[in-house]
């Protein structure tokens, strides 16, 4: 930010001096804009810097990593986000392909429904899941009879994560499939390539950057998932207490543990975003160079 300010001033300094310039005050406009843009930036970055500064202590990190609650939360978050990512990719890819390549009745409705979890408050999503799969939910008795208990288990955590993260993946993967020129697939077919081989030799490699980006975003969304999880899966250490929930619980007792967990989450999220930018940035030149 400081660099940009200097740059602006430098440009002004290079201009020939304007004596008696009636519009001299306009020279301050860029400075004003810069100051104004500092405000939101401070709001966005400030707390994160404070968080990093307050919690950065190797000693505390060592203690926190040793804490069974932290370890359990880390392990649970890793296992559940992995499981939900696999499920999202497995079931989301065909939906994304369908939306990208085929026109069918109800397509617009499906499209809108798939975006709903993105704007829906997570707590509402959790409530909806609970009302559907909870013990007294719509499918509760049926699941009960089959001996399946979903609510307040790690299955529920995975379901909540899938619910909120699937749209991110489907949206990105769909964009990836849409960007593949159907002519490429037609040409591949005239060369005797079977539909399955066309998908794996042409469509998938070209859509891959977007698919990977969607995976990163979906995984990061699942990792940060809080509202739906606490409504539907509860906050049981080792069973449904993922990292965001552990941060929340630790706040009541050990602030140090909460800060450490928060810092880990911050860096993981930042890492995910950087990977996302890298992957999509690298993919762009690939796709649009046709």
């Amino acid at each position, binding site marked *: 930010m400081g660099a940009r300010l200097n740059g602006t001033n430098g440009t002004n300094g290079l201009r020939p001096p304007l004596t008696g310039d009636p519009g001299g005050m306009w020279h301050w406009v860029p400075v004003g804009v810069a100051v104004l843009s500092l405000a939101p930036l401070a709001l966005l970055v400030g707390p994160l810097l404070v968080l990093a500064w307050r919690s950065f202590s190797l000693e505390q990190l060592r203690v926190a990593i040793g804490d069974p609650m932290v370890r359990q939360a880390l392990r649970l978050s890793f296992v559940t986000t992995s499981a939900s990512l696999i499920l999202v990719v497995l079931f989301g890819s065909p939906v994304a392909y369908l939306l990208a390549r085929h026109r069918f009745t109800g397509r617009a409705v499906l499209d809108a429904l798939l975006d709903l979890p993105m704007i829906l408050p997570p707590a509402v999503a959790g409530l909806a899941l609970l009302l559907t799969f909870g013990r007294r939910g719509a499918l509760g008795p049926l699941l009960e009879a089959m001996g399946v208990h979903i609510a307040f288990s790690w299955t529920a955590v995975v379901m909540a994560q899938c619910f909120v993260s699937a749209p991110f993946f489907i949206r990105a993967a769909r964009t990836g499939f849409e960007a593949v*020129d159907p*002519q490429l697939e037609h040409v591949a*077919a*005239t060369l005797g*390539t079977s539909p399955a081989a066309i998908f794996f030799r042409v469509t998938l490699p070209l859509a891959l950057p977007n698919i990977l980006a969607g995976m990163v975003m979906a995984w990061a969304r699942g990792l940060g998932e809080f509202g739906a999880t606490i409504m539907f899966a509860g906050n049981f250490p080792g069973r449904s207490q993922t990292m965001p929930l552990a941060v929340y619980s630790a706040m009541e007792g050990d602030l140090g543990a909460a800060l450490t967990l928060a810092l880990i989450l911050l860096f993981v999220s930042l890492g995910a975003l950087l990977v996302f930018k890298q992957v999509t940035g690298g993919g762009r030149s690939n796709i649009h*160079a*046709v």
Partner: protein
Amino acid sequence: MQFELAIEKQFGGFRLQVDLSVEARTAVLFGPSGAGKSLTLQSILGIVKPDRGRITVMGELFFDASTGVNLRLQDRRLGYVPQSYALFPHLTAAENIAFGLRGRSTAEVRREVGAMLDLLRLHEVADRPPRRLSGGEQQRVALARALVVRPRLLLLDEPFSALDPALRGDLRSQLLVAQRELGVGVVLVSHDLVDAQTLADMVAILDGGRVLQCDRREEVFYRPVSVEVARFTGSRNVVRGEVSSAIDGVATIRIGSATLTARSARPASTGPAWIIMRAERIRLLADDETADRDESTARGTLKTATFSGTCWRLKVSLDGADGPVLEVDAPVWWWERHGREPGAACTVAVGSSAVHVVPSRPSAAG
């Protein structure tokens, strides 16, 4: 190369109704954009499925709506070069060419791809991705990729339209070389008259989703079935006239005060008619020159003379009360010797086979 199709397809407000029977080494589907040329090509390929009709290529039934036959793209074994070339952006030029050779031995793939790189002079760019190839190179890679699997027929959609004109001639001859080398029939879609003139044995003129004429190149260019075809094929002289007699394929025509003789395989009937003459098949007589026995002559006045680069384009106003203006292309060497100023009197001569008569009212042929 031989194919037949009679298909119908409705696309929203556009109706494709194409009936073609082609036997040629190279056939050009020619017409303005929106004529249905590409849709016809995609129907042959199997990308577009017609609502009704039948498609037979080289004696094999590809599509028949009445019996439900519809061969997959993979089983039609046709080579396809789309307008955008559609090279696989994630593969190199050589990998693009080898795409259809999956399942062959490494040695065979190397030999076949190598032969194509030789034939189309692509060795230097073999390891480049498509984005680092020039337009002409991309086109040759797309051609090689289609040819390497030995298709029964090669289908090209506007292959030269994206290239700059200087390159087109070069690539046209490359295509001819490849075709002669491999003996494959070519169907080419184009809105460039030069493609039809230089590459085609057979030309189909399409407009508004219908075939206006499909015949040998000379027939289409020199004996168009309608005024529309004449205009599409670049006949610049389409003038009203009167057929005063028509006996044994020889018609006598009055244009203004001039009388011309037309000899045609198609019998003309007497009455008002359109008279079609290509500017490059008419000549001006030099002062000391007389017409050949086969030629008719007409007197007129030179209006303008414009240099086109390869000939002089003359406009000659024929004498008489309603004498039309004829366009005549004079060879450059001739104009350098016999050129004259606008306003000068001159005599136009035209052979009987260069005068073509189309009935004034649209007939069954149109």
